[in-house]
């Protein structure tokens, strides 16, 4: 293991992250004022609809923003500024200290390589483990995620595995270098719901066992609540609400979170879905005030000019809504 950080100091700390794109000749915002803290062993959810900026935040952490995108603000990993890492250090950060899990495993695995070669390549090339050690670790981890015959599995090709099994292989791949931080981008969205439940239970298990920090990106608020300790809800490139996951998912403090929860049909009964009028906004289309104002049922004049910074609600939660103090009791989830 790499030296453990102090229990209180965050593993990953993001402050006032801004990302701007100038792909269309015009400079437009993509992320505004994003703050995220992840401690060792802690799971943090980033939840939002398309265009909210949740995946872009992960790409900024990895320093893998698309061309013509630029980031500003501070992102530190164990106190070290990620933007200041030189190429060798950055490569080591990505290969040894970060694990990535994506939505579509087939897009991130070479179909012509066996599972065993895929799992061991990166750690051997980076010099982190010798081939023999890498094979032993892969075998151990495959067993941990539920493969009964790891040796046999390592001789298989990705095409021979179902989506659920392949995603377990990707979990193993992410954990191979003993990373301190795992970034997971909708890791179960493409899976069937029974397989999702299975993979999530395995995933939650190994993340806990290995004590890694986790950033879990998803559009599914209930899934995030089941998997993470804290979560931040994103809208139009900003975090609109943050707090303990079970609190955010049952007693939201921001009208957007509340509306999102009221939009989702319930498994248990048919109910009038309020939906949210209009379309999800992007950071580029949002005005100077609250970016949710044009779709919000509680909008007031002040919302159009009030800044969207997070304000502390109580010891554990923060909301970007001007009216949170007065609305709080009315935003409670109806189907919880």
């Amino acid at each position, binding site marked *: 293991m790499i030296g453990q950080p102090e229990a209180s100091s965050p593993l990953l700390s993001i402050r006032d992250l801004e990302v701007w794109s100038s792909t269309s000749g015009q400079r437009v915002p993509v992320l505004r004022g994003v703050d995220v803290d992840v401690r060792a062993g802690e799971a943090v959810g980033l939840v939002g*609809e*398309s265009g909210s900026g949740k995946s872009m935040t992960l790409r900024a952490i990895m320093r893998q923003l698309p061309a013509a995108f630029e980031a500003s603000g501070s992102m530190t990993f164990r106190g070290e500024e990620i933007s200041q890492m030189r190429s060798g250090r950055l490569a080591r950060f990505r290969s040894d200290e970060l694990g990535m899990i994506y939505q579509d495993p087939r897009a991130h695995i070479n179909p012509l390589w066996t599972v065993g070669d895929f799992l061991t390549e990166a750690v051997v090339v980076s010099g982190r483990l010798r081939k023999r050690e890498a094979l032993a670790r892969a075998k151990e981890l495959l*067993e*941990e995620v*539920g*493969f*009964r015959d790891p040796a046999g*599995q390592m001789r298989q090709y990705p095409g021979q595995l179902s*989506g659920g*099994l392949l995603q*377990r292989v990707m979990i193993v791949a992410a954990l191979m270098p003993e990373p301190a931080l795992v970034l997971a981008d909708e890791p179960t969205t493409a899976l*069937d*719901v*029974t*397989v*999702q*439940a*299975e993979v*999530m*239970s*395995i995933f*939650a*298990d190994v993340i806990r066992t290995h004590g890694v920090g986790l950033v879990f990106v998803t*559009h*599914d608020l*209930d*899934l995030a*609540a*089941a*998997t993470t300790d804290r979560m931040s809800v994103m809208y139009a490139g900003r975090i609109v609400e943050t707090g303990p996951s079970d609190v955010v*998912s*049952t007693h939201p403090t921001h009208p957007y979170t509340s*509306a*999102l929860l*009221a*939009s*989702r*049909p*319930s*498994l*248990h*009964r*048919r109910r*009038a*879905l*309020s*939906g*949210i*009028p209009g*379309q*999800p906004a992007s950071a580029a289309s949002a005005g100077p005030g609250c970016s949710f104002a044009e*779709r919000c049922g509680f909008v007031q004049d002040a919302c159009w000019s009030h800044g969207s910074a997070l304000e502390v609600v109580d010891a554990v939660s923060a909301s970007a809504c001007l009216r949170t103090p007065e609305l709080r009791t009315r935003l409670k*989830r109806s*189907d*919880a």
Partner: protein
Amino acid sequence: MNDETLLSVRRITKAFVVPAGSIVAVDDVSFDVRAGESLGVVGESGSGKSTTARIVAGLEGATSGEVNFWGARSRPARSTVARRAQARRVQMVFQDPFGSLDPRQTLGACLAEIIAVHGTPAGQAPKDYAHALLERVGLAARHASSYPRELSGGQRQRFAIARAMVPQPHLLILDEAVSALDVSVQAQILTLLNELREQTQLAYLFVSHDLAVVRQVCDRVLVMRSGIVVEEGGVDRVLDEPQHEYTQRLVASVPGPGWRPPQRKSRAQA
């Protein structure tokens, strides 16, 4: 079968030939849909739910078994006349309408083309009918001059529904029609589907992997797995008191308030 039975599917089976032999995608499936009823078909990948929908739509023939509309045998249409008659019985809406819209055709021109084939309800001018359809699905008459790329995902799905309604079909087959939408937009489309059914005698065959969505828009539901119907019944009964082990597992896997992934029994599962 009674007078109200719009669709009656009897013992349909579909086998696909593959190099290693054949795969049975749909295995002896039977069900009825009454006029104005909404029947959900739920299942995971490989359950045969989409193949079943395509057979009912006439896009594919069954290897064996029958599909009957209003008591008359329906087969994949071969002649133009038969195809038009088929279109007036059943229409289909897919997950991503973008793939079936001509990027160079305005919405109005697209509707006009279909109206020219199927006509309008008594006395209505084609243009008025097109505008009425757009408004019925929550778009505005001005959208007639829009191109598909100018629409959001939710608006495109609204248009796909409007287009399917041109021939005034009796049955609308929706194959994962709201699955690709953000939940705030999905809610709008689900509400629209419920409103449409209240206003007309339109019936739905609603194919989805999402049980909560099925609860929202269906009266009855079939649960399919590996080509077989494992459970069937009223949507409340099936989701509240699932009888089949697979339905129980499906219901238990859906994240909701307070949901946690099931505890792992042992490490050796795969």
